[in-house]
């Protein structure tokens, strides 16, 4: 059976964008292409996590699970894990 792609959404609310979320949009430059091939990455409207969550911006949603304070390094690891478990 063909594996379904990992759905990744990067919050592009202004707060996330300026706190480093923008950097994640350069994913082509820092994520392993083999991993990228199995992911569907898009920027999305504010996930509203900053209003309720206890974490910190930027927020990323991977297969509908929310992660907070995501930097480039963490982004790579999260994607690798999600692809492995898919």
């Amino acid at each position: 059976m063909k594996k379904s792609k990992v759905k990744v959404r990067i919050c592009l609310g202004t707060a996330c964008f300026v706190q480093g979320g923008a950097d994640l949009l350069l994913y082509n430059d820092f994520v392993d292409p083999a991993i990228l091939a199995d992911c569907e990455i898009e920027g999305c409207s504010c996930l509203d996590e900053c209003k309720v969550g206890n974490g910190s911006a930027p927020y990323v949603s991977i297969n509908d699970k929310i992660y907070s304070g995501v930097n480039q390094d963490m982004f790579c690891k999260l994607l690798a894990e999600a692809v492995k478990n898919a």
Partner: protein
Amino acid sequence: MLELNNQYTLMKRKIDTEVLKNFFNDTLVENADRLPLEIIPKHRTPFRCCIYKERAMVRYRIMAISGIDIERDDDEEKPLAEYMKEVLAEDKPPLPLLTTISTGCSGCPKSQYRISDGCRGCFARPCMSNCPKDAIIFINGQAHIQEDRCIRCGKCMEVCPFHAVVHIPVPCEEACPVDAIKKNEDGIVEIEHNKCIGCGKCVRSCPFGAIVERSGLFPVAKMLKNGEKVVAMIAPAIEGQFPGTLGQLKAAIKKAGFYDVVEVAEGAEVTSIKEASELHERLEEGENFMTTSCCPSYMELVDIHIPYLKQKRSTTLSPMGYSAEIVREKYPDAKSVFIGPCFAKKVEAAKKYRDSIDGVITFAELASIFVAKDIDVREMEADDLGDTASFEDCRQFALTTGVAGCVMARYDNEGKPAPKTMSINGLDKKTVRLMKTWEKRAPDADLVEVMACEGGCIAGPGTIVKPALAVKLRTAAKAAQK
């Protein structure tokens, strides 16, 4: 220079946002002294020596964002609340642009080359044979540099096959293109303000955050809060700095309290037209070259360090200058605020446009206003930008070669070969040295475009996203338009 987004800039944005939130909620004076404790909570693992120093640095950052000249006005006994009262009552003078936090300075040792234990003591010893001063000796089979002989040319580092030679710079001194940064007798940073050209490279290169810009945010925030009629002039570099489209950004800026938004690209069109005809005239008169005049840091560089170029730079006003005229004509009773990527624009506004420009803030500061006011650019209903056809190409002013490109597009060469252009892409010690030689040997070009930041304004010290991403987003926006 440090990468744009690092722990320090992210912290800076957080502090700015908290200060503004309190300002707009009328709780600034009341909460000011609590902010450092809230931002650096007890359980935090500190990056500096301890949380107490981190809190002290937050205090200084709050002072800088409110425009206080920390060098001259640092009273440790005075509560932040008192400072805030002062700032709310009266705007601080905008110059000098930069200030230092002496307790934040790490007192980096003098710039030096050192040989690490990666040295294999090889037989060829290229370090020794290539050192012009015979400064390298071998002790116990390992190379050593004799400090008193070393002239820090870096040859040994270039030739070592094991990369065993390391260069340990003083980041701020290294970054300053005009040697305006010195250490005092205690080894602590000092800025020679009369030499400073306001490029902001030292601010961005200090990993300890010991050099800060005195923000012009408060005067602007006060205007917004008092409901004054303020028109925002947005620099061409703004495209790609925020999520969403330019139209949405315009709507967001208006939601933040600005009355209207004028694109500085509109003023850039006037600059391009006038600079094109000025170039034409000058070349007719047999002059050898002309430089652009829109980069305020370059203007300061010429005024202070290379007086010869005064006659060579264009007398045309910068896009900001013409944009202020456009605003004045359209809304005679409004105040105008320039929003850009640049620190030196504050200097330009304070020196040249005291009467027509009422404030200068950066993109990063605008972002703090958005976050403090809970404005989400991407969720806004796009505002109409009006007819932008004639000046759309002038948004390229924000990129290296963009200014020269716009000027040439408006140059009438009457069938003769087009003038040659050249660009100085970023000021550093080397390009400044080169420009100083132009008096004796003119550059091989008719129009020289000078930009202090490498890559153009999109790499300015007040930007939010990395230049590479800004270019990507700008290209995507252009594609979406078609």
